[in-house]
């Protein structure tokens, strides 16, 4: 009955943790984070995996943890009888983790399940421990059980965390993530070392149960040191005021941990390890007397809480980042629109408009006028032909002066617009520029190359159709003006006065290029002048409304066309990585993950996990 109840309280927790780990791994990686760097994550993963693989008899992992020279290996040797290098001859002494396991666990595969992420290897000689290998190495030996033990205890000796051999630090810290019980060992002169105190805080946070052991000191000094340590960490260290999953602060947890000391001795023995308080059990009995099941679950609780807290804050940061990115996306798109508008507004094809007007007018011209004007038309055409003949005689085959036309201008303006925008964004978002940023000079160059390779889409015919509709209405209302308009160009041709107009009508407005060979300043002026001439011509025929409408329609249509063109062929290339990240953020199942976090947190807070 009791067993069942226990199962029922643990079941939702395990399920929650499982979901947390599985969903979290994917989500956090996709958001560009590294789950392993989140506080608590690695420990939860290692302990939970071992917990799920557990057999009938629970196995408790205890580790000896402390600075170089504290006597970890000496105590390990005393407790287990496993022969590991100890003493001060070489410092640091151990370069690998050594585990002493009960005989029933003398199997690398069983140990691999118990220590996820490690490769277990039998310890044969001391030199193995002195060699430097990767942090995944675990050397093990069996220890002789003196009598039938109450629990299965694996004791691990780890390298130090404070010498110049920095690879040792990782090995020690990795084992700390796994072990439920920590014996924190320190010698008298090192107890107030900065690094030692930092690691002590970490142990208080990670372990389910801890013992503090001072070596190389006597009873009186040990009392003084303990008093000094408790006083030091009580006020000055914010990290010791943090809460554990069981509600205690780290400081409280430290105070409640059993404390031992051992004097300096030529011949160390277990009898020389004394509890500081008389009520504390001896170290050996402490290690054997644990309620393994309870401690294992408590060992899951601590990292679970940390993981939930760190995941929640990671997700909240990501959400904040998402808000910022969305704002930025809006800004950038607004910039694109603005620039597309600017280009479209400047490149209004006034010539094309005049041409359409004339076409429409001619189509509606009464037959008798056509006969009258044809007399004028013939010399005009002849004049044009004659001009071509002269050109041909001069060896000029092309139709006009080889100058810039409207399309080239539009291309140049688009180029300038993208360059300008790129620089603007680089200035506004310095975090995206820099050598590795998405707006880096190399990326800008790539995007430009891609952009220049794509042809600018031709203007769609929608606006022309609209203009023709407007013109039909205008022709209905101004029949005579329409007739006049259809006739004027021919008249003008014969007079040779408005050759400019002819050019306008026959080439679709390339006359504006006459003035545009002077760089961009000239370009703007040229186009402006062209539009001016075109508009003036239309005004004379009361076509202002038509012209204005046409211009507006052109602007809206071309702006959209250019916007899509710039967005697809330039911005998409430039901002590829960034937009992908934004999309991942938007698509990520953040709310679901938050729910899982909250569920696990609730279970932990309600104390149902036991």
């Amino acid at each position, binding site marked *: 009955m009791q067993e069942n109840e226990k199962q029922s309280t643990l079941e939702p927790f395990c399920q929650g943790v499982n979901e947390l780990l599985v969903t979290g791994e994917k989500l956090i990686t996709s958001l560009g984070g590294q789950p392993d760097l989140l506080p608590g994550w690695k420990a939860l993963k290692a302990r939970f995996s071992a917990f799920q693989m557990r057999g009938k008899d629970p196995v408790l992992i205890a580790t000896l943890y402390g*600075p*170089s*020279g504290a006597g970890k290996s000496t105590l390990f040797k005393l407790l287990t009888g496993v022969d590991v290098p100890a*003493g*001060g*001859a*070489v*410092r*640091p002494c151990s370069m690998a983790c050594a585990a002493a396991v009960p005989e029933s666990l003398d199997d690398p595969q069983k140990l691999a399940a118990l220590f996820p992420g490690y490769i277990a290897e039998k310890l044969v000689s001391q030199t193995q421990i002195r060699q430097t290998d990767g942090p995944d190495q675990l050397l093990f030996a069996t220890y002789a059980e003196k009598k039938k033990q109450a629990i299965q205890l694996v004791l691990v000796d780890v390298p130090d965390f*404070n*010498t*110049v*051999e*920095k690879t040792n630090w990782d090995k020690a810290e990795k084992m700390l993530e796994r072990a439920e019980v920590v014996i924190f060992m320190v*010698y*008298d*002169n*090192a*107890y*107030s*070392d*900065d*690094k030692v*105190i930092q690691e002590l805080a970490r142990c208080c946070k990670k372990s389910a149960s801890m013992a503090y052991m001072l070596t190389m*000191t006597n009873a*009186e*000094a*040990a009392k*003084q*040191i303990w008093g*000094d340590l408790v006083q*030091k960490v009580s006020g*000055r*260290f914010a990290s010791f005021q943090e809460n554990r999953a069981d509600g205690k602060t780290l400081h409280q947890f430290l105070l409640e941990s059993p404390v031992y000391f051992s004097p*300096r001795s*030529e011949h160390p023995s277990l009898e020389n390890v004394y509890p500081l308080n008389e009520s504390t059990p001896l170290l050996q009995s402490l290690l054997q007397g644990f309620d393994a099941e309870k401690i294992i679950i408590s060992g899951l609780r601590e990292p679970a809480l940390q993981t939930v807290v760190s995941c929640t804050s990671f997700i909240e940061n990501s959400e904040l980042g998402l808000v910022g990115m969305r704002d930025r996306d809006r800004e950038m798109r607004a910039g694109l629109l603005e620039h597309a508008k600017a280009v479209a507004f400047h490149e209004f094809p006034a010539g094309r408009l005049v041409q359409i007007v004339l076409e429409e007018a001619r189509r509606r011209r009464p037959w008798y006028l056509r006969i009258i004007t044809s007399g004028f038309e013939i010399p005009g055409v002849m004049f044009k032909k004659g001009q071509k003949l002269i050109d041909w005689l001069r060896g000029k085959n092309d139709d006009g002066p*080889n100058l*810039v036309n409207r399309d*080239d201008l539009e291309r*140049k303006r688009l*180029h300038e617009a993208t*360059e300008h925008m*790129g*620089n603007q964004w*680089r200035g506004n978002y310095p975090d995206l*520029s*820099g*050598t590795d*940023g998405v707006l*880096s*000079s*190399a990326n*800008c*160059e790539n995007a*430009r190359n891609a952009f220049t390779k794509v042809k600018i889409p031709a203007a769609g015919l929608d606006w022309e159709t609209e203009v023709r509709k407007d013109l039909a209405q205008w022709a209905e209302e101004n029949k005579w003006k329409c007739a006049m308009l259809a006739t004027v160009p021919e008249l003008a041709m014969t007079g040779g006065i408005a050759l400019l107009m002819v050019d306008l009508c026959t080439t679709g407005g390339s006359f504006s290029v006459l*003035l545009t*060979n*002077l*760089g961009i300043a*000239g370009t703007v002026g040229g186009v402006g002048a062209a539009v001016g001439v075109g508009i003036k011509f239309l005004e004379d025929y009361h076509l202002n409304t038509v012209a204005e409408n046409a211009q507006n329609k052109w602007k809206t249509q071309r702006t959209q066309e250019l916007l899509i063109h710039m967005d697809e062929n330039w911005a998409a290339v430039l901002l590829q990585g960034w937009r992908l990240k934004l999309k991942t953020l938007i698509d990520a199942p953040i709310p679901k993950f938050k729910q899982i976090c909250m569920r696990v947190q609730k279970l932990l807070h309600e104390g149902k996990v036991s």
Partner: protein
Amino acid sequence: MNASSMLVTAIRERAQRLAHSCSLFPLWPDSLRLDVRLRRALEKLNAENPDAKPLIIALLGGTGVGKSHLFNALLNQPNASQISPAIRPCTSKPKMALSQHDRPLLQSYMDLSLVDLVDARLDGVVLVDCPDIDSIDQANHEKTRQILGLADVVVFVTDPAKRANFEIHAEVKDWSERKRWYFVMTKLDQYPNDANAIREDFIKRITELGFEVDRKTSFFVNCLEPGRAEFLELRQTLLGTRSKELRALLPLDSFLGHMQYALEPSAGNYFKSQALQLKNTEVRLEARLQEAYLNALAQSDCSEALKTLLREQVWQQSPESVGYLMSLPLWLRNRLASLGVSWSIGQILTGKASILGIAGIGLSSVMSLLRGQLPYKKVAGALGIEFRTKVESIVADSKRTLEDLQIPYAEESEEELAKEPKLESKGWGLIGLGAALEAVARQVTRKQPEDEILEQLRGDIERLGQKIAREEFGFVTSFITNLLPTIAVGDILYRTLMSWIRHDYLPWNFYGMASMVFLGSLLPGYLIISRKIWSASTLPDMKELVAQVKEPGATELIRIARKRAENLAHEFELLQKQVVETRNTLASELDSPSFGERVKHSPKK
């Protein structure tokens, strides 16, 4: 002393130059750090006065290794610095032992309120017991670092348990170049079984830090037994009297040490890699520029214009090559042709036709007529709008690259704006004319990207023109074309001469007719020459031409930055070499037990 002061001056100058090179890259952490450290080293050198100051020796080590014990034992004053059996850290304010005599000398050099003073019978030596550098008491570390900054010699004190601690080693490493060192291990007697192994291990660790220690600078002592030989030796080495001449060399050595500290090898590598990156970008951008030139020059307009130019160049050479009478009509033709070409260029450049504009064009046409210039600008015009865009994008890319690499650059457009003349400053009557003329002049003289290629073109076309002219107009051409005019002139001269001799004067209209005949006789030759010129003119190899464009303006910004970075890396290397060499030279004098050890290698990673 003279030689050494000259040496200092040389190094100082070089260091100042390097600091200046650094200041051109103020956004690089490495260059900023180098700059700050160089300047500090220079300041320190200026502040130091070797005669006035006692030698400062500081004890450095982790908490609980027995620094205070050692301090007390060295001074033979058991209570000079407080000692605790258990509570750590114990010393929180530096203790300074010195003689009454040295106190005023030191006062001018440092703030004595930083330390607790202890009277001691010392001669020219000050011993300081520093707080620890590894406990949770961060304030202690700061105090210690202050003292270390002032010290000349540092004694690294450790015990077997802490001998390999990372944080302490990191501190020693940080100060290693700037100080001279002794190494003391205490409490070895607590490990009687492993004493030799520990000794060896300790020496190995110090060697890893870059030192080459021997028995004279490393000591293994028991502070509780100061009567033993090893301890006495340590006391004699640290507190004994030192030669004044050698003491005078210490500031120089310390200056060099500071230099060595400033010149971190990693910074040198960073500068080199940045310079390389700039170089690569420059090469890439130049290649793009060349490609743009080639594409633009391959356009039909452009090659047409080039052909015209080449023909014109052959024309220009023709009077000289053909020579004699034929050179007259050829010269005349050339002058007229320049006028026409210049006129058309002027039209393209100014665009609008106003009276003043036309006057400007006329003026420049006449100028070019007088000088016989060729219309190279026309080629520039034909290079086209796309070419301009490409050049602009190269400039934009070099600016962005510089921004990415955090290198400041000068905006050249601002300079140009500053150069633009202000119209308001002219007298009112001349405003219009002056402005127009200036506008024309600016259009003509403003340096455009294509000007570089034009300069190359000009030289090449000239050479090619000369070559073609020499090949086409050999002796035969010269003979054939000049034959007819020579006969005509000969005939006319003969008749004139004869008439004078006979006093039978020819009528005046004879001279008119003769001139006509002469001109007519020039025509066949002229036609032959012009046919030859039209048929022969092959263009030069554009690839070669483009490759000859050196230091183009489009990549100027990046080139300047690259040169500066290369210079920085170079100066860095030179100074580094000189510092190391000089310090090695000094070593023969200073490397004796009385001044401690100095770092000799870069520390092991």
